[in-house]
């Protein structure tokens, strides 16, 4: 029966030819998700495929990064800022046909904040004291202290609402409330989603969406050129972008990411425990040469650990202008006029591998010799991130609003500053907007003037899309490829 329908459809499509608009899309992605549960792993690929498409949270991120209502129709904050009351949309169904109610929300939040939870962002839920299902469509969340960014936290992919009925199989058969249903996962090849006909909100415009995993940049180029994929999210080889731009079949979307790309210095390891040395390294680096050489011009220079598209951003690149002479003078002042030797550990992405070679040459020019080692991600996580065995390393921090990592002295670059730690603790409980902005700017200034790391550039998100495909997010306010509004032009 099914075969007969497909046959007829294919025949109709052939007969009418181009008159029928395409209703499916294939998106190329470099990384494949390890499994399909966004609430129990840090892998960004899981959210890229499932966030907003299959799973939804109480709140959600819009394409510009603002937080808007998701499954919550309305919310209310108590006077003391400690109690949040969410009113859920009525008539929302999970893909397995069960209703969404307050019990599911309570289950999801309690599961995420539980003692044995494996949620990758447990800090998002750390402040929750209790979750209460008042009636089937009302949930009351009580916090231990007022928290300014609680709604923001609830928009993350790690805070999506899951159902107890389907939780056992979530890693291979995710059941959510979104506009797309999970259909099939061919491991090592692709994941297919199909339209959810019973979606509670605006229905998806596409009938089918396939995420195809292509890790090799050369293969990605071939797949795009042959139009095997309709879009390639975060296209891995910036050197090919000029070619796509020149081709009328394609559009290149250059957007913002939350990825601050930094040359991280081990603040507890000599000689980087000396601020003068860190300052010297920062002045020895020519950001523009790195952006041009490693990213072929895509990227925005940054002077602190903060995204330029954020309203609270202040431009601090002036603190660490390219000035090799000053770098040499600073090294001499630190008692290292003859330079020194250190290690530079590089993870696989091209910003690190290519950027690393450029930085090594720039550091050599002021007398700092680096021994480069190219590592795979697993090795990098083990040696540099967890083992803290590195002098220098390059990595892009893609989490949104992650300046708080500087308040964690055990974080891999081991920056320990009590003033900043206090500032960030105050920031977490501050609810007033203007105050929050001011505190963020203070924090940016402190780490910039302390030269904790050398701040290179904000990673650009370059997505190559078929010129007729509309509605792909150019920016990445979170790890997501929201296809709910994507459609083909006539």
């Amino acid at each position, binding site marked *: 029966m099914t075969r007969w329908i497909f046959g007829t459809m294919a025949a109709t499509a052939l007969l009418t030819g181009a008159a029928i608009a395409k209703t499916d899309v294939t998106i190329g992605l470099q990384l494949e998700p390890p499994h399909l549960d966004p609430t129990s792993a840090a892998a960004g690929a899981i959210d890229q495929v499932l966030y907003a498409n299959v799973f939804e949270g109480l709140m959600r991120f819009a394409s510009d990064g603002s937080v808007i209502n998701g499954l919550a129709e309305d919310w209310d904050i108590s006077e003391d800022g400690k109690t949040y009351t969410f009113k859920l949309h009525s008539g929302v169904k999970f893909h397995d046909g069960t209703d969404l109610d307050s019990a599911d929300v309570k289950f999801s939040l309690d599961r995420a904040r539980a003692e044995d939870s494996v949620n990758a962002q447990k800090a998002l839920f750390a402040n929750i004291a209790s979750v209460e299902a008042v009636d089937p469509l009302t949930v009351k969340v009580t916090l231990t202290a007022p928290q300014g960014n609680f709604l923001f936290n609830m928009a993350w992919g790690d805070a999506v609402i899951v159902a107890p009925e389907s939780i056992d199989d979530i890693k291979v058969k995710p059941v959510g409330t979104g506009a797309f249903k999970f259909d099939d996962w061919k491991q090592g090849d692709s994941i297919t989603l199909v339209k959810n006909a019973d979606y509670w909100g605006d229905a998806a415009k596409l009938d089918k969406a396939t995420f195809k995993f292509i890790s090799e940049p*050369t293969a990605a180029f071939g797949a795009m050129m042959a139009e095997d994929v309709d879009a390639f999210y975060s296209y891995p*080889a910036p*050197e*090919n972008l000029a070619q796509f731009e020149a081709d009328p079949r394609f559009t290149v979307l250059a957007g913002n990411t939350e990825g601050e790309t930094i040359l991280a210095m081990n603040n507890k390891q000599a000689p980087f425990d000396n601020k003068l040395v860190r300052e010297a390294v920062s002045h020895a680096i020519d950001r523009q040469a790195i952006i041009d050489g490693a990213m072929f011009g895509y990227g925005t220079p940054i002077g602190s650990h903060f995204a330029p598209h954020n309203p609270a951003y202040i431009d601090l690149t002036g603190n660490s202008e390219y000035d090799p002479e000053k770098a040499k003078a600073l090294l001499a002042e630190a008692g290292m006029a003859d330079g020194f030797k250190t290690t530079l550990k590089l993870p696989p992405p091209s910003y690190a591998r290519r950027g690393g070679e450029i930085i*090594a040459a720039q550091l*050599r020019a002021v007398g700092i010799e680096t021994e480069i*080692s*190219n590592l795979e991600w697993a090795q990098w996580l083990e040696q540099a991130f967890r083992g803290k065995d590195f002098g220098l390393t390059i990595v892009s921090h893609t989490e949104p609003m992650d300046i708080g990592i500087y308040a964690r002295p055990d974080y891999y670059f081991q920056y320990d500053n009590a003033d900043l730690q206090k500032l960030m603790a105050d920031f977490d409980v501050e609810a007033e907007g203007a105050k929050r902005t001011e505190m963020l700017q203070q924090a940016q200034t402190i780490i910039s003037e302390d030269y904790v790391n050398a701040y290179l550039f904000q990673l650009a998100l370059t997505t190559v899309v078929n010129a007729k495909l509309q509605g792909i997010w150019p920016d990445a306010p979170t790890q997501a490829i929201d296809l709910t509004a994507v459609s083909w032009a006539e």
Partner: protein
Amino acid sequence: MRNLTFGLILTTIFAIGALVSFVWTPYDVTVLEIANKLKSPTADHWFGTDHFGRDIFSMIMVGARTSIAVAIVAVVIGMGLGVPLGLAAAARKGSLLDEVIMRGNDLIFAFPSLLIAILITAIFGPSAVNAIIAIGIFNIPVFARLTRGAALSLWTRDYVLAARVAGKGATRISVEHILPNVANLLIVQGTIQFSLGILAEAALSYVGLGAQPPTPSWGRMLADAQTLIALAPHVALFPGFAILLTVLGLNLAGDGLRDVLDPKLRVLR
């Protein structure tokens, strides 16, 4: 004879390039000029520039150094260990020593060499030295087998018998009578292993396990150029040709040397 000449000329060109690079290269390969990147070949830059604006001609000269050094040392390791083992095995044919040596060699031979090289560099970290060791180990059974095979037939010769009658020990006979007679074969095989060593080094560097940046290496130049082929084909073509021509030269030289040195072929003429 023509093969030999042509092969030697090609090999010599690269050897000279590598030697000259110690004292002079047209441009400094450690200096990056981003503004000058991906320039096509011109009179200034004979082979053009790469994605960091480095001169590809200079990089190929320095890369030849890396390739040749790795391959030579690997052949020396293989000969240095393989030949004595082969001689010992032949001298004690059928003994436990012979069995241990030859089965040990079979064991190494049974593994795909590049896979083990990747394993070694994965455990001990990628570097030129580890690449040399990995490639060198796989040269050992090649030379050991060759030496043993040739030596076995020599041990039945009358002059060896005469030497034994004269009271010479197995070690002395091996060194004084067997070794000089298998030297021809070893030289020919050495040339071929040398070219295989260059290929292996390029392959290891290509997957990122050979010489680490900023040391130029032909294999890594190819890997870096992979995504640039559509944009600037010369970046991939020149290191590719360098590998091709060196290996071709060494193989031709090996063939030619065998024509000249191998007694069996000499008789046929």
